């Protein structure tokens, strides 16, 4: 029987990689923040799959919540489009 967590884990890591590549080539910074949000959410998903609940709580509260808020505040001062 196939090992389900590793299977959906590999789907999640592929999605994270694609999101990171898209975020790197994106010119619109707000879109890049949302795309890196996808990357972060699949990171949290992989932490569940790899059995790390302590890290999961710390990561969800910090890596998802506070990081995006701080970056959006910082973006309010600059310009939205790169180049």
């Amino acid at each position, binding site marked *: 029987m196939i090992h389900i967590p590793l299977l959906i884990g590999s789907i999640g890591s592929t999605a994270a990689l694609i999101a990171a590549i898209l*975020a790197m080539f994106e010119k619109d910074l707000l879109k890049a923040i949302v795309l890196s949000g996808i990357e972060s959410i699949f990171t949290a998903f992989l932490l569940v799959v790899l059995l790390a609940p302590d890290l999961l709580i710390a990561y969800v509260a910090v890596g998802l919540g506070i990081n995006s808020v701080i970056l959006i505040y910082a973006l309010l001062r600059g310009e939205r489009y790169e180049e």
Partner: protein
Amino acid sequence: MTLEAIMWYYILATLMGLGAVGLCGMVCRPHMIKKLLMLTIFSDAIELIAVLAGYRISATQPPVYPGGVIQGFVFPNPQEAANFANSAVDPLPQVLIVTAIVIGLAVLLFLATLASQAGRKFGTQNLNKIEKRGE
């Protein structure tokens, strides 16, 4: 090589690709916020590689003893502890990574406020434009 090993190596390869993307974006892109985003992606990749190294497919439990209640918890005997250790994942990478998350947040907080002050001072957060202005 079993199917599980192939999937494990596939996850490792995508995570290394994630780290490479983060590093490349940190160097290539001129916008400060883009650099910060790529920094978070890079640190995510490093964390996940460390956690993946501690994972075994025969494990079914996180490194926390089940049944933790504040009143009425009975400490296990050595036999139960040995059984538990056979079915739990490695706690050491997780311990190291909790610290890494905190430090990463501290760095990001400080750098983001610096970027916001730079935006206030120069009117832009694009490093190319700031460099041109200095000439």
